[in-house]
C-alpha cells in the first residue's frame, strides 16, 4: 500500500490530473523528472545529504514520559519541529528545489497559508540560488506579516493574492495561474500531497523519510511498532509521510483534521486544484472556506491518497476542536517542555481525548510533531486571554 499510483496518479477513485491543457505537459515533464531522479542514486544521495547537513535529519523521536504516564500510555513524538525552518515542510521543498535544478529551471513558485511552506520554499530556493515567488492571500499576509518579511529576507518575492477568500486556496489558484504563464522556466513547488499528479505522489515520497525514520526509531525505543500512529492533516503531507512507515504494519493510522476544515470526514468527492478528492463544498460544487485556529490546516480539501485510505478503511480520520487543541498545546509545553505548532496539537488533542477510550491503557502511540509553535505563540496568547475572559 502507498506505492506507485501509476501514470494516472490514481488512489482508488481519487487523484488524477485535472489541469488546463497548458499545464499537462509540465505535469508530465515533472512526473518524468521526478521518477528518474527518484531512481537515481546520485540524486537521492544529494537530497539525503542536504536533509542531513542542512536540514538536521534525522529528527529524533522523543518519549514523553510525564504526559504518557498521565494518559496511561507510552507516547512518542516524531520531532519534525527540529528540522530547519521548524517543520516537515523542509523535506518537500529541498527535494523539489533539487528537481527544479535538474529540470533546468531557475525559478520556483509556491503558495502559502500561514507562511510555513512559503518560508521553507524560499529557504530551499536561497540554498540553491533559485529565484522564488510565493503567493499568499491578503488575509494571511496581514496576519503573518513577519513571515512575509522572512521570505523577503530569504530573497523571495511575496505576491499578495487579493482574489476569492484571499487565503490559502486562492493562493493555490493564483500560483497555478502563474505557473501556466511561466511554466517554461518555472517549477511550481506545491506544499502538500495535493494538486494534480504527480504532486500527491511526489510530495508523499519526499515526506516518506519521516515515516521511515519513525519506524526505525519506534522499533529502537519500543522494540515494536506503535499501536497507534497519529498525524495532523491539512493537505496531508506530514500524515502521508508518517503513514508510509507504518501502512504495511498492524498500526492503527489516524489523521486528525481541524473541526472547521475536516474535508476527510465532512468532505464530498469533487475536483479542485487538479485533483479529485474530498472537498468542503456546497450543493452546486462551489468550494467552502475552511476555518480553524491553525492556518496550516485551513484547507478545504485533503490529499487524494488520504481520501482513498479513508475510503478503504486503512486509515481513520478524526477531528479536534480549537479548544481541545489549545489545551493540548498548553499541556505539552508544561509537562514536556515542547512548544508545538497548533497543527500537530490537533493530533495530540485527539490522543488526549481518546486515551483510555479507543486507545487502550498501556498502548504505544506515535504522534508526528510536524512543526514548532514559535509561529503560533502570539496567537495562542491572545486566544487563551480571550478564553479566560469568556
Amino acid at each position, binding site marked *: 500500500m502507498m506505492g506507485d499510483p501509476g501514470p*494516472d496518479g490514481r488512489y482508488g477513485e481519487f487523484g*488524477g*490530473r*485535472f*489541469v*488546463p*491543457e*497548458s*499545464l*499537462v*505537459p*509540465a505535469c508530465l515533464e515533472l512526473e518524468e523528472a521526478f521518477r528518474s531522479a527518484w531512481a537515481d542514486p546520485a540524486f537521492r544521495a544529494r537530497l539525503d545529504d542536504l536533509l542531513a547537513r542542512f536540514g538536521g535529519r534525522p529528527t529524533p523521536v522523543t518519549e514523553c514520559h510525564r504526559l504518557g504516564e498521565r494518559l496511561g500510555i507510552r507516547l512518542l513524538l516524531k520531532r519534525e519541529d527540529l528540522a530547519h525552518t521548524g517543520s516537515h515542510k523542509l523535506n518537500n521543498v529541498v527535494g523539489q528545489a533539487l528537481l527544479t535544478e535538474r529540470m533546468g529551471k531557475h525559478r520556483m513558485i509556491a503558495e502559502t497559508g500561514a507562511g510555513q511552506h512559503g518560508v521553507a520554499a524560499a529557504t530551499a530556493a536561497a540554498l540553491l540560488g533559485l529565484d522564488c515567488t510565493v503567493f499568499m492571500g491578503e488575509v494571511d499576509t496581514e496576519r503573518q506579516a513577519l513571515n512575509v518579511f522572512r521570505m523577503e529576507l530569504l530573497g523571495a518575492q511575496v505576491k499578495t493574492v487579493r*482574489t*476569492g477568500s484571499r487565503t490559502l*486556496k*486562492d493562493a493555490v*489558484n493564483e500560483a*497555478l*495561474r502563474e505557473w*501556466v*504563464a*511561466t*511554466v*517554461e522556466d518555472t517549477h511550481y513547488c506545491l506544499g502538500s500531497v495535493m494538486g494534480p499528479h504527480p504532486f500527491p505522489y511526489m510530495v508523499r515520497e519526499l515526506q516518506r523519510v519521516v515515516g521511515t525514520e519513525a519506524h526505525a526509531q519506534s522499533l529502537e525505543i519500543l522494540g515494536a511498532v506503535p499501536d497507534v500512529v497519529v498525524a495532523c492533516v491539512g493537505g496531508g503531507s506530514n500524515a502521508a509521510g508518517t503513514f508510509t512507515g507504518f501502512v504495511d504494519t498492524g498500526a492503527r493510522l489516524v489523521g486528525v483534521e481541524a473541526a472547521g476544515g475536516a474535508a476527510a470526514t465532512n468532505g*464530498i*468527492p*469533487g*475536483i*479542485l*486544484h*487538479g485533483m*479529485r478528492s474530498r*472537498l468542503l*463544498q456546497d*450543493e*452546486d*460544487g*462551489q*468550494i467552502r472556506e475552511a476555518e480553524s485556529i491553525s492556518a496550516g490546516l485551513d484547507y478545504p480539501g485533503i490529499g487524494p491518497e488520504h481520501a482513498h485510505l479513508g475510503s478503504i478503511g486503512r486509515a481513520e480520520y478524526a477531528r479536534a476542536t480549537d479548544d481541545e487543541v489549545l489545551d493540548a498545546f498548553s499541556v505539552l509545553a508544561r509537562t514536556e517542555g515542547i512548544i508545538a505548532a497548533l497543527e500537530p496539537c490537533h493530533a495530540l488533542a485527539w490522543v488526549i481525548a481518546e486515551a483510555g477510550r479507543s486507545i487502550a491503557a498501556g498502548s504505544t502511540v506515535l504522534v508526528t510533531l510536524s512543526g514548532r509553535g514559535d509561529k503560533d505563540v502570539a496567537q495562542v496568547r491572545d486566544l487563551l486571554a480571550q478564553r479566560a475572559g469568556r
Partner: protein
Amino acid sequence: MAATSVTARPGGLESALRARRAGGAKLLIPYVMAGMTDDWIEVLQAIASAGADAIEVGLPFSDPMIDGPVVQAAGLAAFERHPTIQGLLDRLATAQLGIPIAIMTYYNLVFRFGHRRFAAALTAAGVSAAIVPDLSLEELDPWAAAADAGGIETVLMVAPSTPPARVASIAARSRGFLYAITRMGVTGERTALGDAAKGVVERARAVSDLPICAGIGISTPDQAREVCEVADGVVVGSALVRRLLDGAGPEGAAEFVRELRGALGG
C-alpha cells in the same frame, strides 16, 4: 435577432461553425459570464444580433483556476447576485439566441451536478456544447460519455505547450471546434498577439479539419484579424467582459462585437 429563427439546436455547434467556415466567414465567439450583470440575457441577445457565430457562456466557479482578473471579477459579480447553477441555466433557457451556446465552466460543477444530469440540464437550457478547461484529455471519458449520449459537444483545448502528437489526440476527441490557446497564461487582455499564437493553430490545422478557434488574450479587432490569418475564428473574453463590468450594457457589447465582426470581414 429574430426570436423565431432557431437554426441552432443542441448539438449544432460544430455543424453551424463548419457551415459558416464553408461560406468563407471567420468565426467569432464572444464570452460572457452568466449572471454577471442583471441584464446578461439581453447582453447575450445583443451580441448574437451583432454578428457572433456562437457564444461562450461562463458558469461561475469559486476557484476559477485559468481565469484572469477580469473574468474572476465577473464571476464574483455573478456570485453577489447569488445565482445557483440551475438558476442560471433556467435564465439561459429563456434567451432564444438563434446561435449555438457553449457553456464554459470548471469540472467540479459538472461532477457535482452529475455527468448525465448536467448534460441534460444543458440541453434543457438550449446549450449545444461545453468547455471544461480543467478536464484534461486523460480524465475526459466519464464526462464525454455522458455528453456524447446527451448530445452535448465537448470542446477541447490545445496549448502552445502541447506536443504535436498530443495535439492530434486532443483534436480527435474534440467536438464543436478545437480551442487553440494562443498563449501560456490565464484569460486576460494583451497588447499584442503572442509569438506562439500562430504556431499552435498551425499544429492543430495539420492534424484536424475541425474549425479551429483561437482564444485567451485576443483583445482587439486587429489581434482577431491577425490570428485569423491562420485560425478559423476567435474567442474573445476579457476584452468584452471588461466593457460589461464597466457598464457597457447590451448596446456597448454589441458595438464591440460589431467592431470585431468588421475586422474579421462580414
